[in-house]
């Protein structure tokens, strides 16, 4: 393993325990001592069964879940930011400039058309509206979202259609780090192939990817390494 290049994203000794106060303070240890480093252009896949904490780790990396132990180091051009301790507005800026995230499900916003959902994601990263629109259209077309749906809010779309809008939103900007939580779960073979191509293009452009893929075929085609999360299971 090359030790020299600096990782774009590094989880260092990350640990997470949920405390459920409504269940009498029940403590649910999820993971402990997770160290995963992702280099630019590399795709690291988190492996292990459901409940092992894979999604939780992505959410911790994105600042969506709190990081109870350890550090999440994100490299920016002029500094390294620890998501575990950063101020909320620093995390918001990181999400704008550096870390993209494709969740398992699209969280729909009432009234906003699919195309605008995607355009907004590019505008937030600083693309001028015209360029953002061009990128959004190209991506929706590549993901086979029928053009007649673009002007409609995704609330009424099928699961697969929503997911493709979600993927377009996550891929439209140029984030140097992408977190992918089962992006291909509800897609057919043609769309899985489209997503694989998109992921490979991101890698070629030096994007560091940390992802979860249950589909073995997809995983084999994009993964450089698989990290089995079960080895970080907390001793309950």
């Amino acid at each position, binding site marked *: 393993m090359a030790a020299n290049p600096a990782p774009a994203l590094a989880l260092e000794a990350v640990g997470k325990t*949920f*405390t*459920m*106060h*409504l269940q009498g303070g029940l403590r649910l240890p999820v993971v402990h001592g997770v160290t995963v480093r992702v280099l630019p252009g590399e795709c690291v896949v988190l492996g292990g069964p459901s409940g092992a904490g894979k999604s939780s780790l992505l*959410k911790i990396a994105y*600042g*969506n*879940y*709190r990081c109870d132990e350890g550090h999440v180091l994100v490299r920016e051009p002029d500094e390294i930011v620890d998501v575990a301790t950063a101020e*909320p*507005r620093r*995390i*918001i800026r990181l999400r704008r400039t550096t870390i993209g995230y494709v969740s398992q499900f699209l969280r729909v*916003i*009432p*009234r*906003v058309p699919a195309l605008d959902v995607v355009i907004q994601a590019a505008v937030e990263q600083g693309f001028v509206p015209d360029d953002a629109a061009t990128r959004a259209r190209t991506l929706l077309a590549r993901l086979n979202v029928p053009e007649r749906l673009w002007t409609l809010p995704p609330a009424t779309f099928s699961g697969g259609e929503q997911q493709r809008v979600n993927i377009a939103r996550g891929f439209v900007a140029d984030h140097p780090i992408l977190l992918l939580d089962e992006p291909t779960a509800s897609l057919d073979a043609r769309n899985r192939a489209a997503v694989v191509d998109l992921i490979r293009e991101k890698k070629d452009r030096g994007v560091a990817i940390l992802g979860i893929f249950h589909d073995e075929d997809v995983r084999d085609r994009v993964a450089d390494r698989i990290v089995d999360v079960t080895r970080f299971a907390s001793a309950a």
Partner: protein
Amino acid sequence: MTQDLPLLSVRRLGKSYGARTGCRDVSFDIHAGEVLAVVGESGSGKSTLLNVLSTQLAPTTGEIHYRMRDGVMRDVFALSDAERRFLLRTDWGFVHQDPAQGLRMTVSAGANVGERLMAVGQRHYGHIRHTAVDWLGRVEIDAGRIDDAPRSFSGGMRQRLQIARNLVTHPRLVFMDEPTGGLDVSVQARLLDLLRGLVADLGLSVVIVTHDLAVARLLSHRIMVMRHGTVIETGLTDQVLDDPREPYTQLLVSSVLQV
């Protein structure tokens, strides 16, 4: 550097009514373009806090500093009357839950918007009317209704008019007290979407009080959870809602019905 100074800086703010506590020991900063949601149930102190922040109530303890347009942080309770007027009429907005509190119900929609412009010294009728039409359009009110009084408007339209009246002077900070409360769900969705767009386009800083966690999720960057007058949890909005730490926050989040 001005860029990194907060717009509003609140320290150890408290307000009690005799022996009863409205809110106590509240501290936070808001930077330009940030939206802070204050959530909690009735009686949590969130409305008291909003009224103190907007200088409608005097605090019992603590301080509020605001970055004026010249870049200098000033104690808002030590401003001259003229400076205070400038804040309330121009640089700040306040959106009440009940539009009747923020509007003049007997004068026309156009006058409701134009009035705030006149208060900052605009006198040219044609220009004021043009700006009013423009703002009615931005809040999706048909220009043909400009001469109608808000009494004849639906609840959703009134609320949109109140928002136009507030934003016409290009405030940098807007306080909102349950702006979607009391509206039908479909009307609420439209208003939220409108607010979301305006806040982003204008780069507004907002303190929004709401008991509706969905509103907080849609509009805010950060959340402050209040209970019994104190802030019990604070952080990035999606972090507090998806990974709540305090027992009371966990209760609030788990009490929301999923649809």
